[in-house]
């Protein structure tokens, strides 16, 4: 009889233990399901924008003004400055009902060079993680100007995989991004470019990529050689769902004025943003 009792005690103990864990498990489950549910229901698709080297978070102010021109629903603008220690400073805010807020992430240390791009990708990841936690969005769109495009590429190859269960990058537009830095030919591969090629298999398969470059002369936008931008082809083509290279020329096709070039603004609107709903509804009104 003694032995039998032992069995009963053990079962009782385990039973009590399981009962004791019901509440913490329940609490965790509620929180986690709520968070996932928010993400599933989120219709927000932010456009996250990265400026190039030597530029601040205000680099895109003019572009944003142009994007919001003639729109009834203005895109809200949030700017985040990341310090080297990972501290985030916020300017502006996201409107609650804005389906496509614009988010600019800039860095206190905005120097050029591959080693710094790696650091910036790390800092960007800090900001991105916080954004994903705060706003529970499921889809997002990426825009990178100059070195910003390189940071995006590095981040997609090295950081994105830890989010891809829950988050989804839909499009990436890079503007005048020197994938091979100053090199004019892909025969001379910089360390960064070789690394981009080496890890290109990690790029998300469903991504739509747009590579825009300016033509001041026939071979460069005045700063970045055309061939360095076009080297992006070997990174993206056949890796992502589609890749498109677009050449813009004209008055504002010089590297530093590219972000406010009318053609670039139109391409941005066309490929990265939804149509303005009010205008759309007017156009599609059914005939009676």
């Amino acid at each position, binding site marked *: 009889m003694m*032995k*039998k009792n*032992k*069995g*009963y005690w*053990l*079962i009782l103990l*385990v039973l009590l233990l*399981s009962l004791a*864990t*019901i509440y*913490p*498990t*329940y*609490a*965790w*489950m*509620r929180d*986690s*399901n*709520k968070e*996932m*549910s928010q993400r*599933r*229901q989120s219709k927000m698709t932010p456009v996250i924008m990265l400026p190039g080297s030597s530029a601040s978070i205000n680099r895109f102010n003019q572009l944003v003004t142009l994007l919001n021109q003639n729109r009834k629903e203005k895109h809200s603008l949030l700017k985040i400055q990341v310090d080297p220690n990972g501290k985030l400073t916020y300017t502006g805010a996201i409107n609650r009902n804005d389906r496509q807020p614009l988010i600019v992430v800039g860095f206190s240390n905005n120097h050029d060079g591959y080693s710094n791009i790696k650091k910036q990708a790390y800092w960007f990841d800090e900001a991105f993680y916080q954004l994903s936690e705060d706003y529970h969005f499921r889809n997002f769109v990426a825009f990178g100007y100059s070195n910003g495009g390189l940071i995006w590429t590095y981040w997609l190859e090295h950081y994105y995989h830890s989010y891809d269960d829950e988050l989804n990058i839909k499009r990436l537009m890079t503007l005048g991004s020197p994938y091979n830095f100053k090199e004019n030919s892909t025969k001379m591969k910089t360390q960064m470019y070789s690394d981009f090629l080496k890890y290109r298999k990690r790029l998300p398969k469903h991504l739509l990529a747009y590579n825009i470059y300016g033509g001041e002369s026939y071979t460069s936008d005045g700063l970045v050689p055309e061939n360095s931008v076009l080297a992006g082809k070997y990174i993206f083509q056949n890796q992502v769902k589609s890749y498109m290279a677009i050449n813009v020329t004209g008055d504002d096709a010089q590297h530093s004025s590219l972000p406010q070039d009318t053609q670039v603004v139109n391409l941005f609107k066309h490929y990265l943003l939804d149509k303005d709903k009010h205008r759309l509804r007017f156009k599609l009104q059914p005939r009676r």
Partner: protein
Amino acid sequence: MAERFEFIFYWISKKSFFRVAQRTFITLMPLLLIGVMAQTLMTAFIGYDSWLYNISYAYQFIPTWLSDNVLYLLNSVRFASFNLAGLLVAYLTAGYTAKLFHKDAQMAGITSVLTLLIASYNGNQPATVTTLPFNAQLLDMNMVLLPFLLGYLVGNIFRWLAPRQGHKRFEQLAGLDVRVWQAVKPMLVALVIGLLLALGVYLFKTKISNAVFNSLISTELSTNNILKGVGLALLITLLALIGIGYPVVALNNSNNSGAAVANMNNALIHSNSWRVPYKYLGSELYTGYASLSSSVTLALIITVLLVMHNRYKRRLAGFSLFPAMFGVPTGFLAGLPVLFNPVYLLPILIVVTFNMLLSALLLWLNWIPAVAFPVLVGTLQPIAPFVATNGSWRVLVYSIILLVIDVCWFRPWVKLDMKIQERVANDEKE
């Protein structure tokens, strides 16, 4: 009727195949229990996806370097006890078979390991210094059917070809010489069999790997047809009971099939799972209420604790209760043994069918919601369906009632097993 039943099972368990199986798995049990403990700690307590680690928000106060190192050590224990268990099974099976017929057990064991290694040679993979060129899946605990059959075959080759060996207390060196050379003939025959197997694998490009079961698993993961779901669940359970545990393990991982994702999205949007599109998803019915790694083994362990007198079996059940609560039943299945045990085959298959059909019926009546929300690995099995329905109290009550029903169902079978064990023990004394 009951006596007739008892006699049939007694007669079956007297067959050399099953006698060898029981001995092999009981011998292996201590090793597996160690692995099971490591596995439980990993999947339920310390791993990053584990139950306790998440519900206690341990990532906020336990540094990653500490968890990383502990996980590394636990992984080494788990790997050592599970991933090469096939070699030990081959050794033990051949040894026990030879011993049963009074032949040289040691040499039979060694020969069996040799044959298994030859048959599982995989030279197509690049062999670097750190990776051995063997098909690891064949040597894994989740695939012991093949090592077991091979061991039994090699044991029988010794039965036919090797001379009889009496029991010696401590053999002399000269005697050892004789014994070793006597093993040459059966060894060569076994070697040829091993070579033929390896050649067959090579020539026919047979994929002896877990991939064989992938279509089976993916169908179970996506079928909404109750009969199909139950049929596949029975097949998967049967495979697990004869030493192919991979499908059960694979089903326990998170389900990423289109149907399951659709269910989860629907459930997350509505914050409940009453109206999911694929209500009777086979894998969810099975892993929620009827899998060997969920409450079925747990019910059997509780029954053993309540009914059995044998103190070693009770001790095994006591040690296994804890891991089985968190969904790691391997040690108990080998130790009772349930694996290759004809007595438990039928009741377990019936319980799987019953649990799945009853759950499907209640789903159809809209008495319980479907299992659709994500569950942490190593969540306590009796409350896992509760978590997977976002906290439906009806489901919690139902899973506890189901556990009680299963215990009642196993009771006569465990008693039958006791009687047979007694009869076999009496026979062996004589």
